[in-house]
């Protein structure tokens, strides 16, 4: 039995087993539960790495759940797939890699960060289920399966955001998030229902091969775009993000960033691989570009004036999502036109896709350092902190790395992806580049403010009794720092081996469909 071929199913089955078996391990004591948590998170990371390697060598991996052979997508006598099929192409494997790295870093971090709270076996189960939901959204090839994993991730995050239930703002944030997120999930379900009623198949590739636009498909597209943009934090629908990311425990915020990127991935799948060239891509592309510009600018201007650390970083998360929408929107604008694609479209797609990975790494690291600041001082208000660089120089170093990456200072990885976005959006209209540059400057300004207030400066006398940072928290932050530094020192390798196959897979609708339907497209 060749277990290399079963990797997509193992990527989802292993953390499910981990989440379900955690209460059993909890009976053996705290150390056993922590050990089980780390073992499961590390094996998820190794499986994602092996899966990425296999996809980059062998092409699109297809796995059919419950069939006689795992690659039999069309049963005898049928022209359409019947069972649930997981389809992993280069973009899915790329995002699953990013997700598993942030999940592992958050797992190491929460070993000692959450130490003084009870109910930790529930926390570990919910965290592993959030990981399952995120990974399932990224590798599935079936629309209703996408909705089920979206629900798993949403319900797990409602519980995790409200985990510090003694604080009423946390419960209010979770309730607000729950209402908006349920609305989005219902809209997605209605849109899937429309597409199923029309074509009687639920598989993404099969719908992509059969689709032709009419009023039903247009309404379904409108519902899907608005619901998935709500889940990932685009402009008019981002108001739940500062509350939810700010009130959650720090390792949960680190993972929630990548969960929102999974909804962004769903948005790109719908626009590029299901609808593709059948829709009028100029209208949808300009909608995405305008959402991106407004998110970038408005979120960063609200971020500069915040004085609570995690809310500030949550606003920055919204603005960086704007960069990704801008990049991929420009790529979508050039989709049908192969000359425009070669000129600026493909560069824009590369920039947007690379920015997803970079953002997951440095934004996760920023949330973890904010959690460390809270652990050390017991407060979140910037006005009350000062002079922490003497107490924990390692944290200060990692914060500087992450802040330089997010502000786009050369030679960090944030600069590489932002440069690609600036170059390509300038070819469409210069105003887009101007807004992106101004946003970058304001981002730099707000992080200089945070660094100067929290780390530099004189020590205040209430800071005399800060706690020491435990080793496992430093390990968690260190994983993400190593990832950021590796991307900084080897940008050409990252661009040609990680990003370019992913961007090519996004544009290649015919290949996505042919992997399942067998070339009958």
């Amino acid at each position: 039995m060749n277990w290399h071929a079963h990797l997509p199913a193992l990527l989802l089955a292993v953390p499910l087993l981990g989440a379900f078996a955690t209460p059993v391990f909890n009976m053996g004591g705290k150390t056993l539960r922590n050990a089980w948590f780390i073992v499961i998170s590390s094996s998820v990371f190794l499986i994602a790495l092996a899966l990425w390697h296999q996809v980059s060598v062998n092409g699109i991996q297809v796995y059919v759940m419950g069939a006689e052979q795992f690659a039999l997508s069309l049963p005898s006598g049928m022209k359409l797939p019947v069972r649930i099929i997981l389809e992993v192409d280069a973009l899915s494997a790329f995002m699953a890699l990013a997700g598993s790295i942030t999940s592992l870093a958050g797992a190491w971090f929460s070993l000692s960060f959450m130490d003084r709270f009870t109910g930790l076996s529930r926390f570990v189960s919910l965290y592993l289920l959030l990981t399952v939901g995120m990974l399932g959204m990224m590798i599935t090839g079936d629309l209703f399966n996408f909705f089920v994993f979206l629900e798993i991730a949403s319900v797990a995050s409602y519980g995790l955001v409200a985990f510090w239930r003694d604080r009423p703002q946390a419960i209010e944030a979770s309730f607000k998030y729950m209402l908006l997120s349920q609305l989005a999930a219902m809209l997605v379900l209605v849109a899937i229902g429309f597409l199923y009623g029309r074509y009687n198949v639920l598989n993404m590739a099969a719908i992509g091969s059969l689709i032709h636009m009419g009023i039903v498909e247009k309404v379904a597209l409108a519902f899907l775009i608005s619901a998935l943009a709500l889940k990932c934090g685009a402009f008019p629908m981002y108001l739940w993000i500062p509350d939810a990311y700010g009130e959650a425990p720090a390792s949960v915020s680190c993972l929630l960033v990548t969960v929102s990127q999974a909804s962004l991935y769903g948005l790109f799948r719908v626009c590029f691989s299901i609808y593709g060239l059948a829709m009028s891509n100029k209208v949808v592309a300009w909608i995405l570009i305008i959402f991106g510009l407004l998110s970038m600018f408005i979120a960063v201007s609200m971020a500069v004036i915040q004085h609570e650390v995690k809310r500030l970083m949550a606003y920055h998360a919204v603005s960086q999502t704007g960069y990704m929408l801008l990049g991929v929107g420009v790529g979508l604008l050039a989709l049908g036109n192969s000359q425009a694609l070669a000129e600026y479209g493909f560069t824009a797609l590369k920039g947007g896709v690379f920015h997803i990975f970079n953002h997951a790494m440095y934004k996760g690291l920023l949330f973890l350092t904010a959690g460390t600041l809270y652990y050390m001082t017991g407060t979140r208000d910037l006005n009350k902190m000062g002079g922490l660089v003497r107490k924990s120089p390692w944290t200060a170093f990692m914060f500087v790395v992450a802040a330089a990456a997010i502000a786009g200072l050369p030679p960090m990885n944030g600069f590489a992806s932002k440069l690609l976005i600036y170059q390509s959006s300038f070819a469409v209209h210069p105003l887009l580049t101007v807004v992106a540059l101004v946003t970058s400057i304001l981002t730099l300004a707000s992080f200089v403010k945070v660094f100067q207030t929290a780390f530099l400066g004189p020590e205040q006398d209430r800071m005399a009794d800060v706690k020491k940072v435990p080793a496992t928290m430093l390990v968690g932050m260190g994983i993400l720092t190593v990832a950021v530094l590796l991307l900084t020192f080897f940008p050409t390798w990252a661009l040609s081996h990680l990003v370019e196959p992913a961007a090519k897979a996004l544009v290649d609708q015919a290949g996505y469909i042919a992997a399942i339907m067998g070339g009958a497209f």
Partner: protein
Amino acid sequence: MRKTIFIIAALVFGGLMLGALDSIHPFGEPGNVPMDEYFLHHALEDRSSENVVTSIVFDYRGFDTIGEAAVLFTAVCSVLALFREGAKK
């Protein structure tokens, strides 16, 4: 003022949904049915189950069912995490 915007938005949304619902296929007759017919014909022959709904839920689309069982477990964990007994003073 806010109420008028909400009423207009609700009417537009409802109109879009009804318009789309009307044009999926004529009311009462299914449009395309290749996958449904596959299930109806093959559930008893291949899988020997007399209840086609259960065979779809647990065999043809069993992965969605483990997802739904996981959602139930997640909801139970969330409720237990929220209503846990705190640390004893």
